[in-house]
Structures are given as structure tokens and as C-alpha cells.
């Protein structure tokens, strides 16, 4: 009760401070050369109030205060404490409060940490960020107040969807949001820098840190979501090209491109238009992500609660922001770098530019695949869905030159470069092709596109691997990232090509046998837990080599809300994952059994971790 009250009024106070900050910024912007301390303390105060509000919501969840609608809808007394807390951001209202928290946190850190930049720039960044913050305050208070009352007070809550009661998903939203919302700082400061015309190399290295932070968290956030989907959704896949996944991939693609552009800007002071447009795009796509997921427009396997009014608000807000940024781009941005615009075709600049075009292509494929069904539904009310074949067909062929470029591009020098002493480049290419051919030949998998794809991924792999040993490498983070990417593509490819799957329906005591695998369904146990009842099925699975594994996948029936979930049993080893999941069809004795062997599963996760590690290395590196 009291927490809801405090939380709500903290939000109002935060909003008022946000509005007052416009006034202080205006005064400070015209009069002084030092940052007004009032601005700093008010920004801190705003952060403070949002934190208070957020803590109040967490407390409401912890003590199960069901007078609060949000708590009532998403919590239950029997839920473990950990999931009570994570339930705070597992719902729409709480997750928006988290957005707001990150928004205010980032602008505060930005103001404190930014040095050697003009005061006007700091103030203007604050103003743009406050526009976003105030927008979100209004959105939160108006359409999705997390502190609404319910009367009479219910004695028990509705519970959190059990599929969300999971450690990976508990930390997935905060991490992902740090990435999403981190892009707001990039957006604000790019707009500020454009308006003041101070885009330069030193500005680039300052903003690079922020891009990296956002990029690292976004990468890790996507990874966590993917791992969760892998073991919780019971399909054994890690990426379904589902709209909700796509909306997180799109800002990632734009952000990665931006990261490459900013490197060029840092060194050569060109590609400024790219940087501006991409920064705007990243934030817009992040906002779109929130809009599409929360508005219920998307028809997705991951469906969350939704409400059209909210969608409309975000949409209008989004259009205002886009309009504002385009206005600033056109009126303030003058391309002042015509002096050195011509660079030789064989140079680092060119290769990064080519990289940009590739990334934009991937981005547009994902965008079209995600948006087209919505579009068609609106104009012709035809219901369609776009599946994985669409993406595979359009992305895979272009991945080949992309991978080759990733190997060769970093070898080139700025401005102009020759490839004379680079015989090893060709040498490795031949080795890669031979190796790919051999591997696939051995496993009777003679698909041309696979061979080429594996060759190019192997090529990148070898080239980057060689660089770890050969040079006193200046750009270690780039090398780790590209190496990680080659590893990722290789793991995904091998994972797809060599995966095997058995789907069958079995009764207790029955045995399934084919030429390679024998599945014995031994017995069924029952288990009672505080918040669910479980059926545990015991399997023993043996393969040709006589290796035998015991599996106990579960079928859980949660009590609040009453939902059945399958808990897969996964045996992870370095080289492959064995994955089994069961399901019970209503009123039948048969269990639906799905057994998969997935090679290199672990490597997919590891390579993504490696990629984000490269980001961390780059973040910690001092500017040479």
C-alpha cells in the first residue's frame, strides 16, 4: 500500500524534475561556460526518484502486496523469492519502469563521466535525453502505471507465467534493456553534436565508448534470450526468426555497423552522415522493438500481454522523435569533409563501406520479413507468416562474400593499400576450400552452398587465428571479434548440417529403435513441489558405440497460473548436446518424445561470448 503510494509520487516528482531540467538547461546554455551544478544535482535527483520508485515496486513484489494491480497480475505467494523479484520486470509496466531507470542512469553517468567535451554539447545531450525521458514518464504514468490499486484487495495473485520463471530470463530483460536504452545516449549525443557541428575525431572516440557499452549488452542480451529459448521452449533450436527475436537483431545489426563507422570517423573523419543516420536508426529500431513487442501487433511464439492504446502512444512518440532527428539532420548537418573524400578502392575505408552495405542489406531483409506480414494484414487483411526459409535464402548467399571481406578487410591499410606480400591469403583460401570439401565428403553431405559457406568461414577462421600469433597486433579486439564470428558461423553450420532428430510417441515401457539409436522409456515418477507438480520420465538412450545415457525430462504443471511446461533434459558436452523433451497429449497414454543430437551447441554460445568479450577488450583499451 504505502510502497505503491511512494512509488507513484516518486514518478510524478521525477517527471517534474525532468520538465524543470529543460528550463535550467536553457538558462545554462545561453549564459555560462561551465556546467551548472544544479543540472547535475537535478539529474541525480531524478535518477534517485526513479530508483526509489523501482525499489518500491520490487518491495511490493517481495511482500506480495496484492493491492497493487501489477503485483496481483504477475505474482503469487508460493513463488520463490528470486522470481518474485524478477517478476518486477517480467511484465509490461515493470519493464517500462526499468527502461526509465536505465535512461536516467545513463544520462547521469554521461554527465559525470564526459570530459574534454564542450559544455554546450553536454547540455544539449541532456535536453534530447530529457525529451525521451519525459516521454517515457508520461507513457508510464498515463497508460501503464505500475502502481494502480485494486479493490477489494485480493488474497492471492495470478502468478507469473512459469515459462518466464527461469534464471536466464530473469536477467535477460535488464541486460537487453541496457543495450536498447544505451542507444538512447548515442541518439541524444549524436543529435547534440550535429546541432553544434562538433562531430570530429575526438568526439568519435568519446562516443565510441558508449556505442561499445550498448553493443556489449545488446549482444549478451540476445545471447541470454537465445539460450533460454533453446532449453525452455523445447524445440532444440536457438533462433527461430521469430518477429520478437528479429526486433532485437535489427538494432544489433545497425549498432554493429555504427561501431565500424565510428572507427573510420575516429581515424579519418569521414562517413559522418553514416554515423548520424545509423545512430538515429539504432535508437528508432530499439523503440520499434519495444513498440512491436508491447503493442501486440506481432503474432509471435513469444506472446506477451498487450494493449492497443500503449502501442499508439509509443508510435506517436516514435514519430515525433524521428521527425525531430530528421529535421536536425537536414538543417544542421553540412557535409564538411569534402576535402578528402576520394579514397583508393583498395583501402580500409572501402572495405568498411562495403561492410556497411552488406549489413544494411541484412538489416533490410530482416526488416521486410518482420514488417511485411503486418503491412499486408493492414492493407488486405490477409494473414501470412514469413518463415526461416525466407531469411536463409536471402542471407546465406550474401554471407559468403561477407565472410571473405571480414578476413581481408582488416588487412588493408587506410587510404591506399597493396596486396603484394599477401600470398598467404591465397594459400589459406585453398586450404580452407580443401578442408571444407574433405569434411563434407566424409559425412556424405555434398551440398555446394554448404561447401562454399564452410570454406569462407574456415578462411576467416584461419586468417584471424594466424593473426593472433604473427603480429604484435594493434587491433586485438577486432581480431577477437572476427575470430568469434567465424567460430559462430562454423558452429551454426555444423550444428545444422550434422544435427539428428528422432520424434516418436511412446508408452511407458516401450522401446524405439532405429539403425543408430535405441530409446528405452523405462518409467515415470511423480514429484510435488511448492509451486508445481511434475511428471518425470526416465529414459535410457544408447547409440551405436554402446554409449548409454540416462535422461529424465520433466513435464511440469504449475499451479499459479495452471500451465503445463516441458523441462528438457540436456546433456552438454564439448562437442555436442543431447537434448530430450517430452509431452503428454491429453487423455492419452502416449508420450510425445523428441530426442535431438546437436553438435557444437556449446560453441555457439561460447563464440557469442567471445564476440562480446572483444567488445569489452576494446572498451578497456586506451586510445593509441
Amino acid at each position, binding site marked *: 500500500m504505502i510502497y505503491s503510494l511512494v512509488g507513484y509520487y516518486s514518478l510524478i516528482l521525477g517527471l517534474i524534475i525532468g520538465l524543470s531540467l529543460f528550463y535550467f538547461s536553457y538558462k545554462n546554455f545561453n549564459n555560462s561556460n561551465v556546467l551548472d551544478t544544479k543540472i547535475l544535482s537535478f539529474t541525480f535527483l531524478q535518477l534517485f526518484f526513479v530508483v526509489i520508485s523501482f525499489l518500491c515496486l520490487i518491495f511490493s513484489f517481495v511482500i506480495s502486496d496484492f493491492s497493487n494491480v501489477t503485483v496481483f497480475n504477475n505474482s503469487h505467494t508460493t513463488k520463490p523469492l528470486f522470481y518474485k523479484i524478477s517478476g518486477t520486470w517480467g511484465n509490461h509496466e515493470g519493464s517500462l519502469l526499468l527502461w526509465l531507470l536505465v535512461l536516467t542512469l545513463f544520462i547521469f553517468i554521461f554527465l559525470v563521466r564526459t570530459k574534454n567535451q564542450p559544455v554546450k554539447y553536454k547540455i544539449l545531450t541532456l535536453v534530447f535525453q530529457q525529451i525521451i525521458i519525459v516521454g517515457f514518464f508520461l507513457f508510464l504514468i498515463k497508460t501503464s502505471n505500475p502502481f494502480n490499486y485494486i479493490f477489494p484487495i485480493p488474497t492471492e495473485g495470478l502468478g507469473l507465467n512459469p515459462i518466464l520463471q527461469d534464471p536466464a530470463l530473469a536477467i535477460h530483460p535488464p541486460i537487453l534493456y541496457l543495450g536498447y536504452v544505451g542507444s538512447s545516449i548515442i541518439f541524444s549525443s549524436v543529435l547534440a553534436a550535429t546541432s553544434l557541428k562538433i562531430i570530429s575525431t575526438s568526439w568519435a572516440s568519446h562516443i565510441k565508448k558508449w556505442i561499445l557499452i550498448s553493443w556489449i549488452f545488446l549482444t549478451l542480451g540476445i545471447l541470454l534470450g537465445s539460450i533460454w529459448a533453446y532449453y525452455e521452449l523445447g524445440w532444440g533450436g536457438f533462433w527461430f526468426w521469430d518477429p520478437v527475436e528479429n526486433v532485437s537483431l535489427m538494432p544489433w545489426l545497425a549498432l554493429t555497423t555504427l561501431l565500424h563507422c565510428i572507427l573510420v570517423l575516429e581515424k579519418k573523419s569521414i562517413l559522418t552522415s553514416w554515423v548520424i543516420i545509423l545512430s538515429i536508426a539504432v535508437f528508432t529500431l530499439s523503440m520499434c522493438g519495444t513498440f512491436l513487442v508491447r503493442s501486440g501487433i506481432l503474432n509471435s511464439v513469444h506472446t506477451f500481454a498487450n494493449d492497443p492504446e500503449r502501442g499508439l502512444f509509443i508510435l506517436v512518440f516514435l514519430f515525433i522523435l524521428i521527425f525531430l532527428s530528421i529535421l536536425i539532420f537536414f538543417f544542421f548537418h553540412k557535409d564538411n569533409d569534402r576535402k578528402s573524400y576520394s579514397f583508393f578502392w583498395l583501402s580500409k575505408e572501402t572495405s568498411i563501406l562495403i561492410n556497411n552495405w552488406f549489413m544494411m542489406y541484412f538489416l533490410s531483409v530482416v526488416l521486410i520479413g518482420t514488417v511485411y506480414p503486418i503491412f499486408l494484414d493492414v492493407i488486405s487483411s490477409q494473414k501470412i507468416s514469413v518463415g526461416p526459409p525466407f531469411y536463409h535464402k536471402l542471407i546465406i548467399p550474401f554471407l559468403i562474400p561477407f565472410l571473405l571481406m571480414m578476413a581481408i578487410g582488416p588487412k588493408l591499410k587506410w587510404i591506399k593499400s597493396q596486396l603484394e606480400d599477401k600470398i598467404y591469403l591465397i594459400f589459406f583460401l585453398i586450404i580452407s576450400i580443401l578442408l571444407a570439401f574433405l569434411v563434407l565428403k566424409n559425412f556424405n553431405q555434398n551440398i555446394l552452398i554448404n561447401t562454399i559457406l564452410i570454406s569462407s568461414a574456415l578462411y576467416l577462421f584461419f586468417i584471424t587465428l594466424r593473426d593472433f600469433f604473427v603480429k604484435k597486433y594493434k587491433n586485438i579486439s577486432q581480431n577477437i571479434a572476427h575470430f568469434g564470428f567465424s567460430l559462430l558461423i562454423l558452429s551454426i553450420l555444423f550444428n545444422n548440417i550434422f544435427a539428428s532428430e528422432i520424434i516418436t510417441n511412446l508408452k511407458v515401457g516401450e522401446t524405439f529403435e532405429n539403425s543408430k539409436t535405441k530409446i528405452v522409456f523405462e518409467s515415470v515418477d511423480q514429484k510435488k513441489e511448492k509451486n508445481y507438480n511434475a511428471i518425470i520420465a526416465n529414459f535410457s538412450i544408447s547409440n551405436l558405440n554402446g554409449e548409454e545415457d540416462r535422461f529424465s525430462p520433466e513435464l511440469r504443471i504449475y499451479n499459479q497460473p495452471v500451465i503445463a511446461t516441458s523441462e528438457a533434459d540436456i546433456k552438454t558436452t564439448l562437442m555436442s548436446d543431447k537434448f530430450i523433451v517430452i509431452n503428454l497429449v491429453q487423455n492419452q497414454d502416449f508420450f*510425445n518424445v523428441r530426442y535431438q543430437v546437436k553438435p557444437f551447441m556449446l560453441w555457439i554460445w561460447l563464440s557469442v561470448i567471445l564476440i562480446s568479450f572483444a567488445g569489452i577488450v576494446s572498451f578497456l583499451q586506451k586510445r593509441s
Partner: protein
Amino acid sequence: MYGRKVKLRFLFIIIILITLILTTFLILKSLEENVVYFQSPSEIKSLTEIDKSKIRVGGMVKKNSISINSNEVNFIITDFKNEINVTYSGAVPNLFAEEKGVVAEGFLKDRNFFSATKILAKHDENYMPPEVKEALGEK
């Protein structure tokens, strides 16, 4: 005549245009091939010819219609006006049950038989795919 710079720029614009057109064409082309349409049992009944392409059928699983053996699951999807028999061999999602909404993806054999390759999972028991909702005529 024109300077070298103008010519170069002209060439550049043409290349970009061609790439754009090619990309758009490629994307649209494969969209056309890979799009999956959604249909209700009633819509299927009124089809004049059976299409060979992949579609989705959505509706309710009819009561007492599920039967299962070691390699197949059979059930009936209904929108309370018409129904269609579905055979499926594969993994079923958690929330697959009689008198619940379902979306099946696969191929039509004829107007009464549908062979599913995938049954879509939903996270939420109260959730009904918008398509199913519409097919059932409640908004």
C-alpha cells in the same frame, strides 16, 4: 563535355540503382515463394482448387478428436462451422489439448485432409492467435 568527376558520380548512382532494384526484386521474389498463408477450415472448404504450397490452418481442436499412435497424432481442427482432419508426426507443444486453440502448418491433401509438418507452440494458455480468434469469428 562532362568532367571525370561527374561521370564517376553518374556511374556510382547507376550502380546503386541497379543494386537496389536487384535487391528489391530478390527480396520480393523470395517473399512470394516463402510466405505462408493462414486459412480457416471454412476457407479451405470453399477453395476451388487445392494449392500445393504450404499453409497454416487454425481453429479449435475438436473435443474427443485426438488419437495417437507410435508415429502419428491425428486430430480435427474446427471453427464450429467446418472442420478438417489433421495428421501430424512430430513434436507437439505443451498447450496442445482438446478444445484449445491451435495453429498447424503443413500441406493440404484435399479439402478434408491436412498433413501438418509443424504445430505452433504458444506461451500462454489464455492466448489465442489473432488468426484463430478471427477464424472463430470472435473479436
